[in-house]
């Protein structure tokens, strides 16, 4: 392929020449967060997938993911930056054409293996030998779906969102139609925000994407899900906490008037955008109260709120919750339901 160096060079599959930008802008690390290394990166690095990845579906998904990351920046006011970004977008498009074409991919892989001094077949063999354990995702808190478990199948990615077409459909006014995806990278499962503006919290830390480990707890505005190994034997029913439901009985309208919980979930109630259960009235503190399982009981705890938390009419700092209890919090009256 013969293209002008200032425009399309980075696009050709066999280009190992280094680009010499007039200004030092490394669009690969700046916009795709690729680790430092050779520039331009090889196609598998570019797509942030495993070396010689043989799954067309995973390749195409990675193409879209990387494209989504860089595309918002194509309108950069600086013409030079814009051109660098265009180069990277061309590069991603080239990765798609090369890796989707079996003949071109074989040629490319062979060249790359030689350059990296790796035996491709041996490499792939050792990869497939190590079978990853099997995992599942359980919805443990939220307005619906609580208790549902979804098994993760190798090489199949899953989607989470409000759309009925999503693998895990999570109805809520606070969620996007496509909120997050979970897919496999190398031997790991990775959860990713569908777009950068969405909020995702994994084990109390806000992030855009996260390699998951068994036991990780993920908050997707209003829902909490648990990532874990598929239990070998079926668990004894109600070995843990009885499922708890909190229902807004009266008060200003809220996106989700219902919150269901099962252990090990705990729910933060407050006005805050990242609160698992957001109640938006003005007398509600940002972090107002918390409901959690202490191993024996569901506990309600006031988080030093401005207007206090009341249980059955009495101001409380901490109390055990029972079936049909009534919580008052700001302008809201909340009913407690405990299923046996």
């Amino acid at each position: 392929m013969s293209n002008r160096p200032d425009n399309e060079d980075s696009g050709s599959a066999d280009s190992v020449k280094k680009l010499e930008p007039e200004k030092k802008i490394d669009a690969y690390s700046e916009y795709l967060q690729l680790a430092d290394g050779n520039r331009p990166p090889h196609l598998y690095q570019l797509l942030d997938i495993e070396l010689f990845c043989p799954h067309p579906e995973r390749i195409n998904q990675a193409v879209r993911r990387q494209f989504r990351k860089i595309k918002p920046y194509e309108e950069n006011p600086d013409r030079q930056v814009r051109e660098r970004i265009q180069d990277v977008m061309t590069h991603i498009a080239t990765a798609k054409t090369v890796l989707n074409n079996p003949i071109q991919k074989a040629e490319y892989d062979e060249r790359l293996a030689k350059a990296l001094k790796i035996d491709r077949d041996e490499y792939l063999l050792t990869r497939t030998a190590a079978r990853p354990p099997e995992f599942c995702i359980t919805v443990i808190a939220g307005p619906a779906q609580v208790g549902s478990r979804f098994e993760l199948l190798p090489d199949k990615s899953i989607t989470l969102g409000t759309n009925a077409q999503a693998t895990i459909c999570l109805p809520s006014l606070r969620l996007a139609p496509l909120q997050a995806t979970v897919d496999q990278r190398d031997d790991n499962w990775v959860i990713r925000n569908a777009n950068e503006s969405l909020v995702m919290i994994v084990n109390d830390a806000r992030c855009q994407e996260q390699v998951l480990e068994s036991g990780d707890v993920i908050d997707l505005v209003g829902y909490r899900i648990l990532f874990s190994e598929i239990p070998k034997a079926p668990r004894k029913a109600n070995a843990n906490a009885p499922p708890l439901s909190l229902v807004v009985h009266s008060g200003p309208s809220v996106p989700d008037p219902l919150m269901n919980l099962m252990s090990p979930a705990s729910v933060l109630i407050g006005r805050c955008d990242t609160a698992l259960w957001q109640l938006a009235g003005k007398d509600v503190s940002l972090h107002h109260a918390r409901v959690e399982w202490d191993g024996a009981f569901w506990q309600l705890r006031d988080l030093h709120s401005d207007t206090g938390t009341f249980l059955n009419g009495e101001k409380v700092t901490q109390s055990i919750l029972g079936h049909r209890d009534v919580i008052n919090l700001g302008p809201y009256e909340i009913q407690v339901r405990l299923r046996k």
Partner: protein
Amino acid sequence: MSQERVKPVGIDLGTTFSAIAYVDDGGSPRAIPNAEGAYVTPSAVYIKPDRSIVIGQKALDALSERPDRVAVNFKRDMGEKFYSEPIGGREFSPEALSALVLKKLAQDGRNELGEIGGAVITVPAYFGDARRKATQDAGRIAGLDVLDIINEPTAAALANAFQQFINQGGDQSNLSIARIAARAPSTTMVYDLGGGTFDVTVIRIDHNEFEVIATGGEVRLGGIDFDQRIVNYFCDEFRRRHGIDPRDTTETMERIRSTCELAKIALSDSEQTVLVCEHLGRKMQVPISRPRFEQLTADLIARTQISTEMLLEDAMLGWDRIDNILLVGGSSRIPRVARMLEEISGKKPEMAIAPDQIVSHGAALHAAISVLDRAPQPVTAVGERRMDSESAPQPVNADDEQRMMQAIMATDAVDAAKRIKLADVNSHGLGVIVRAKEGQVTANSVIIPKNTPLPTSRVKLFGTEAKNQRQVRLRITEGDTRDPRGCTQIGECLIRQLPKGLPKGAPVEVSFRYDASGRIQVKAIELTSRISADVHLERTSGFEQEDLNKMKDAVSEINVE
């Protein structure tokens, strides 16, 4: 009232070509030929040394002689301050250059119709706020009454549905726009690869309702990029054989470029063609085959494929939910386009009847419909006739209304057109810049995500940053990333004079309203003091009124040919 029928027009202001159309008395869209007899006019502006201005094919012809005096592809620079290069030593804004093209089209329209009554101008669906404003400004500078701007794929879908009605044996003598879609509801994907931009849109058509589900695309991807690949191929060959790179000098480049463009067009029909060009007295022939062309442009096609797949992912639609694929735009004639779409969808895409004109037809239909919407409603419809017509202004009676509408099209078509409903989505998110809780970095908080059906309104709650904060400044953005660098600021809203002693995190409620005609209204209120501020971001102008008038006057004095 004049009995002459003053007709509104629809204008497709394209990167490489533009077109104008109107809706005739029977309610059918018709293309208007330019003074040279062609139905499309190259979007090229030639400013002669004597400062007279030539638009269209003649301007394009002058490009190889006077590349410094001809402007092309300025739609790509829409939203920027100036066209990429000075023309005849002067800097021009893309709006002014576009206005000249619009002026020429309107002139052709007047030659055909006598007077024209307002215009609808099209924009790529993926255009952001700045580019849309710039397009509307261009219309105003050209002295047009801009009725509305409409997204190109929506216009194409409208015109196509109309065309299908006729093809399926619609009653020619009793045409009506709204009967076009009186069939089973269907979902159409419009793939629009034009000269400079690429749009892909999914539209649900249910009887008279055209509902856009999701839209995507690229603002800098089109036919001229395909041309450039052939140019580079030729120049590389030339350098290899002669040791000189034609790209180093501007002189022959325009001729090479137009040869390559013609070769691209030829390769849509034939398997092979030959590029014949001369540079510095050295003539060279370079054969080029269709597979070679497809290899040179594989990544460009792949980019449209990525956008298409991303769109389906956004809309959470599988190919099984798409009933048909409509190809629009001259560059979708490239055979690889239809093949690629068929490979990934398993469906045979259909080419629009006139892919270069269909967008202007749709714009004309929309123009006719918006004029009807604007017409005043009758006060009463009693049989009594009003006798006195001296004291103005009078409420319009039913007769007048009827006459006003008949001035645009026949009664039958009027009834029908009034029933058509268009519903669009926003192609980019809208939000505000906030300071993230964790640390001091700023972040963009999207309030209306992209592909939200319009009109819409959304509310989000924020807190003040510091104790005793006296004012809150909201920077309003367009974009979908949390990173502010991925967004463009399109406005600002300031709450002033908050009371003393507010705690940190005092609740500030921000609400966004986005109406169907593109007006954005932002309101912010501090909930404890109830002090608020609001701002209207109208898609009216990127210019001050005074500057706009100045440009308008300047353009009105210019004669274009």
